[in-house]
């Protein structure tokens, strides 16, 4: 898994990234770099991380996501984690893993709605 396999899609003023199914530490770090580059390049106001294919959530991944959320916020964007699997959420809650200030949504549709809605709709984890 390398940098090339991660695609950051620009949708109007939002960015959409699909996280690969079984991301290793290197991929997760690369993903952060790519996202931040794209944030700078497109001046995006929001980021949707589609994690619907992710099967396991480890502490490194959770921490990197939490950091990315903070970094994106510093660059003026809001982040939504979309489509976490039920089994992943159960494990994460039991392990006490959190994803910082990331917003969450059931799927990408709802994530886009959330980002396009007024900031009053902000939900925190």
């Amino acid at each position: 898994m390398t940098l090339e396999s991660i695609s950051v899609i620009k949708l109007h003023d939002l960015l959409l990234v699909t996280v690969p199914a079984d991301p290793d530490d290197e991929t997760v770090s690369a993903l952060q770099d790519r996202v931040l580059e794209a944030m700078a390049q497109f001046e995006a106001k929001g980021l949707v991380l589609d994690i619907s294919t992710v099967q396991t959530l480890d502490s490194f991944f959770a921490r990197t996501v939490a950091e990315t959320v903070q970094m994106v916020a510093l660059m003026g964007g809001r982040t939504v984690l979309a489509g976490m699997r039920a089994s992943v959420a159960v494990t994460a809650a039991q392990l006490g893993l959190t994803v910082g200030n990331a917003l969450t949504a059931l799927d990408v549709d709802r994530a886009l709605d959330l980002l396009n809605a007024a900031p009053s709709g902000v939900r925190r984890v």
Partner: protein
Amino acid sequence: MKEQMTATSESPAVVLGSEDSFRLLVESVKDYAIVMLDTGGHVVSWNAGAERFKGYHAEEIIGKHFSCFYPADSVQRGLPEQELKAAARDGRFEDEGWRVRKDGKQFWANVIISALRDKDGTLRGFSKVTRDLTERKQAEERIKQQSREIMELSTPVMQVWQGVVVAPLIGSLDSNRTQQFMERLLGRIVETNSPVALVDIMGVPTIDTQTAQHLIETISAVRLLGAQVVLTGVRPAIAQTLVHLGIDLSGIMTRSSLSAGLQVALDILNLSVVCKNGSH
């Protein structure tokens, strides 16, 4: 040898009055298998109960080693010898486990092996009393299965509106049940694509710190998923307990009734209930 002879003449059978009548008593017991073993574990005496449970006639089994009552894997692990050793050491050994009949069928047995010592403390052999508890074992299995089924039944998650699921919790929440409840709730939220889940705790008798912790865990899992939980059915007694225990649920939306919770859910979904004539 002389000592042993003396001891025999003072055995309980003699005290009872007649050795024959004592033997008759033991041999005719049908509900317990009462077997005497020599110090090496070979069968010395056999009674009606033993014949009934194990299927051997006295003449086939006397002189054989008692390990033939055990399943092959237990014999391989040296269980029969261990049991005799334990009985010789402690005077008594009790165990429950699978034993084998002559026809190869297994039965669940309660076994008590006692060391038989004469007055001088010399080991003379062992008595082995066995009960057939297969029926009780089966009843226990049934109860276990039924409690699993009750657990399944007791955590329904229903969709009550497009985008709203309701999970009424009934009974106490232990970690086992929380796990199951969490999986079920999250599964249904994903299945029905519902952004709001109402968890009703009206049917939860009492809340302690552990139960609250389990609830908080469930709620954070739901949030990771991208949905929200409204905790409903917070009775006065529960509210008091939560405050007295110092459990902080301030980050969680709570309502006293399910209907109030449903109202919150509709607000979140930007929906409102309108009368047919147009007024709210």
